[in-house]
């Protein structure tokens, strides 16, 4: 709470307010029952929403981005129903550039075959760029939560295609890199953060690929010394009931940023995990 800026938002470390740390801080405070600072954070979030329904990474940036998925993870009764609905609508309308009609038509006219991994639309970090594992995982988590409230076919369709996007981008050895499974013939290697995020988004999906991903996540969990990575790995393993019962958070791993700390608190508490996995 001491890190909250006067405008109601939070910085990553210090300085001006950004959407990502503010969304995570609000979730952590709501889970802890600290409603007053959370309300100020929610006011900041509502005030920074853009006319297209999305959210910018920070106030003053005139572009809606992936952080809209984090806003959509906030409860509509806290954020406000209309702001929440706009966030969901923005997510439903947003895809990676490689999935747009214009791009596909251009590629077809040029005679370029469509790579199998581009068959299913995912989400980009920022519109007009390609879809990636991180923003796709967050968007799937937000839409999955929304589908439990409003089981609409349009939401189901994007969840399913987002999950297929993730499954198509699983590294050969298991787990997930940021994007393609290979570049110029070289296999991409999995990262802990993206592996945890993708596993969380694939909750309920049982497949040999998911099992390989879980094995990679368990290996990373024993090796990794980054708070952000460990948070996502735990969440990913929890989503599949696979977090080892004797797991102990390693000593000496520092929370470098506010999202590190907030996400850590959320993963620790059942109420916190509900923001992602309820």
């Amino acid at each position, binding site marked *: 709470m001491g890190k909250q800026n006067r405008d109601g938002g939070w910085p990553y470390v210090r300085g001006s307010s950004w959407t990502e740390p503010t969304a995570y801080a609000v979730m952590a405070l709501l889970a802890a029952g600290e409603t007053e600072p959370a309300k100020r954070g929610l006011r900041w979030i509502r005030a920074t929403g853009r006319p297209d329904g999305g959210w910018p990474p*920070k106030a003053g940036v005139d572009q809606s981005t992936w952080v809209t998925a984090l806003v959509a993870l906030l409860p509509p009764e806290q954020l406000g129903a209309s702001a929440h609905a706009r966030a969901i609508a923005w997510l439903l309308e947003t895809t990676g550039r490689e999935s747009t009609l214009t791009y596909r038509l251009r590629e077809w006219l040029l005679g370029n075959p469509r790579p199998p991994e581009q068959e299913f639309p995912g989400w980009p970090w920022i519109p007009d760029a390609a879809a990636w594992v991180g923003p796709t995982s967050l968007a799937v988590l937000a839409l999955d939560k929304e589908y439990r409230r409003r089981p609409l076919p349009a939401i189901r369709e994007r969840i399913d295609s987002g999950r297929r996007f993730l499954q198509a981008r699983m590294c050969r050895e298991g787990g997930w890199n940021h994007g393609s499974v290979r570049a110029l013939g070289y296999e991409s290697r999995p990262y802990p953060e993206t592996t945890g995020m993708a596993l969380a988004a694939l909750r309920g999906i049982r497949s040999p690929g998911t099992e390989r991903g879980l094995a990679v996540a368990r290996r990373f969990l024993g090796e990794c010394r980054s708070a952000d990575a460990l948070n996502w790995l735990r969440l990913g393993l929890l989503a599949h009931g696979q977090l080892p019962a004797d797991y102990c958070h390693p000593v000496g791993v520092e929370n*470098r940023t506010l999202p590190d700390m907030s996400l850590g608190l959320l993963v620790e508490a059942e109420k916190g995990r509900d923001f992602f996995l309820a």
Partner: protein
Amino acid sequence: MVSIVRAPVYDQRLYETVRRMVEEHGPEVRGRRVVLKPNLVEFEPESSINTHPLLVHAAFEAFRAMGAASVRIAEGPGHRRNTLDLADAAGYFKTVPCFEDVFTDLNLDDVTRVRPARQFSRLGALYLPNTALGADLLVSMPKMKTHHWVGATLAMKNLFGVVPAGIYGWPKNVLHWAGIHESIADLHAVFPRQFAIVDGIVGMEGNGPIQGTPKRAGVLVAGGDPAAVDATCCRIMRIEPFKIVYLQLASGGESHITERNIRQIGESLSAVATPFELIPEFRWLRMENS
């Protein structure tokens, strides 16, 4: 002017080597703000993927000794989100005293929207970090590496790290859609006051900038014109600089990168030339094939 200095290993002698190297060029830094921009990519302290922290600290001390009002280290990695964890794993916390006090994560810095002085890509205006924009001298400190999209990644390509991933994402994919070479040239045009020190002590060859293999070249290359520094590095790596598109774009008429137009001091190119292995798609870049 571009200088080439032999530096066989990462040890304490680097402090003296870098101090002399920078003083020889004499950039005006007294009372000015200097920002050192290393290349941090992956959590692999023993590999040749990141700019070595000892070199960065040697530059830090050199600019301070020359009277800079402030010297900061700043980087915005394109792949991994947790920059401080990455810097820790790369050895920066151990090597640079009070590292967190002198470091800025460019991915999460406050930003200003700017339009490059010369525009080669379709990017238009770009949000860039205030720490980099406010520098009186931006010192690009890349690793000497081959690159699987552009052939070689050196001082100019290293400026991709100033583009804030907090705005554009990890990786900074908008730059790829706008044209990698063109975006490099755009960024070069945004920062008129630059210096470059290239870590070629152990570089990377093959499938760089991430999955390549270490290549010992045993040199540092420095100068006030990043295009000339990069062209010199290419010649050391036995890559034809005129075949690197971003060098052609940024050098405007190629005069900056023509060998006879670069005043070179220190070791001769022939004495330090170390052919870097290229992936098959880029073997046509070899000087021998020109």
